[in-house]
């Protein structure tokens, strides 16, 4: 272990301790619920950002992996064939396999077409969840709750245990993702994002790298789905609906896609905003839509994009071709 990885591990541990202590310092269950919810969404968003922010691939279909994590975990637990930790691993493997299949088809495409194809797959996945009633319960979701037998003395039926478990898994997943993006692999991703041609010249197998990233991104996003499934003791088709992807993308944008912690900050903000808007008004769309418009037309950059300017510059506000024009001109 190098010094910086030791330091990061210590930071992660400290974050975990703080998170575990938080609800007991006066926040109560409301705070715990909020944190679990934001953690689930935050993992989806951070996983997604491995693609968007680090590789420059905009997936509009990540909700399907969020759902596949939740559904496979829930279904395995309902079948009562393995304990929670193994079921999680199995759910991640299943998601990884699905992602590898879909990724192999999608990552060859660029830009908007990649986004559309992932969106198409997601809609297909969603319709399977709805119509394969025997396995998925259709629109009723996985009926009957998700049983969670005690393992290693952890009883997820107790709110305190559930909270501690979810927070631990989240911190662990975040730590692993951080290690990935700061590894040589992470640098390769950024090189592909910034200059794919250069990467090819340098002998990088771009397809393999993109596919690996796609799978990793899907797997981490599915951890978020598993946490949400644990929290509400069920899985529902709307996990795979495009609006779920849309919200995750908004979280990435809101927090900032150039910063590793941007998406999770975005998740914290948006989850909080949702709670506030729903609590104080019946006009969700008006308020949240207004906030989104203000953000996208006013701020334009995520919160953490301001704190730490990343490698990406924003292009001037002119139609696409103008911007293209400027870059291929002489000097």
């Amino acid at each position, binding site marked *: 272990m190098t010094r910086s990885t030791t330091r990061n591990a210590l930071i992660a541990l400290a974050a975990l301790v703080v998170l575990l202590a938080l609800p007991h310092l006066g926040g109560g269950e409301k705070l715990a619920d909020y944190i679990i919810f934001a953690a689930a969404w935050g993992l989806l968003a951070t996983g997604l950002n491995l693609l968007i922010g680090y590789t420059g691939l905009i997936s509009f279909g990540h909700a399907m992996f969020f759902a596949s994590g939740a559904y496979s975990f829930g279904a395995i637990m309902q079948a009562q064939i393995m304990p929670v930790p193994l079921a999680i691993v199995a759910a991640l493997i299943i998601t990884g396999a699905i992602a590898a299949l879909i990724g192999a088809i999608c990552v060859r495409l660029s830009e908007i077409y990649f986004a559309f194809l992932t969106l198409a797959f997601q809609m297909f996945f969603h319709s399977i969840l709805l119509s394969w009633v025997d396995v998925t319960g259709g629109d009723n979701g996985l009926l009957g709750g998700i049983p969670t037998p005690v393992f290693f003395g952890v009883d997820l039926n107790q709110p305190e245990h559930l909270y501690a478990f979810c927070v631990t898994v989240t911190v662990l997943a975040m730590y692993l993702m951080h290690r990935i993006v700061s590894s040589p692999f992470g640098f390769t991703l950024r090189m592909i994002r910034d200059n794919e041609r250069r990467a090819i010249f340098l002998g990088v197998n771009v397809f393999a790298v993109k596919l690996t990233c796609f799978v990793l991104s899907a797997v981490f996003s599915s951890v978020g789905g598993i946490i949400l499934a644990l929290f509400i003791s069920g899985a529902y088709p709307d996990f795979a609906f495009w609006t779920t992807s849309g919200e995750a993308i908004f979280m990435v944008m809101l927090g900032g896609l150039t910063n590793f912690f941007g998406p999770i900050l975005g998740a914290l903000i948006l989850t909080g905003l949702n709670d506030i808007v729903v609590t104080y008004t019946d006009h969700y769309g008006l308020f949240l839509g207004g906030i989104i418009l203000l953000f996208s037309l006013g701020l334009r950059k995520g919160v953490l994009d301001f704190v730490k300017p990343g490698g990406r*510059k924003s292009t001037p506000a002119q139609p696409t071709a103008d911007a293209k024009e*400027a870059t291929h*001109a*002489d*000097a």
Partner: protein
Amino acid sequence: MTTTMLSAQGLCSYYGLSQVLFDMSLSVERGETLALLGRNGAGKSTTMKSLMGVLKPARGATQYGGKTISGWRPERVARAGVGYVPEDRQVFAELTVEDNLLMGAKAGTKGQRDWTLERIYDTFPMLTPLKSRQAGLLSGGEQQMLSLARTLMGNPDLLLLDEPSEGLAPLIVEQIGHVLKDLRAGGLTIVLAEQNMRFCLDLATNAVVIDHGTAVFSGAIDALMADQALIDKYLSV
């Protein structure tokens, strides 16, 4: 009658974060043909773009016909009488030759419509049989003619002509030269950015030499020709 038609002072332009023009200045008199010389990458095209408003200079000012036009959008500059023929021609590949010409059609600043399709086909006879051909299928020389003709359809008072001879066969270059001479004779003011000095000699009266985004010489083209050291330093390949 010599009045200043177009002048620029202290233009600084950027592509993204990299600066390309540094304090670039020039001035063109009415009816004059000004050659903008310099090596590849010296900043000629950037100067043209900055004058046209296609690229917004970060600093500096441009006056045209007594008005400050820096900061104007290109269409406003064009409507004020400036015609622009870009370096890489930029014909609309999917449109036919005639549609390309019609795209450029507009009245001049005094409402004149001197350039009609007939006159264009007279001036550029090689375009006549190509009328309904897609512009993308034309040869480089034909595209250059088309691009120039398209701009003329807008009846400009001043022509910004960027590297018209680039990559073309000598015969075509010669034809273009003839057309330009006729235009000059008709009273059109021309700013001609070129690497090909020989091409400019016949056409231009004055010259500006650009290097590293700034004007290193400004004066009569004869004076430039006389200064072999300057030519060696900034223009020889």
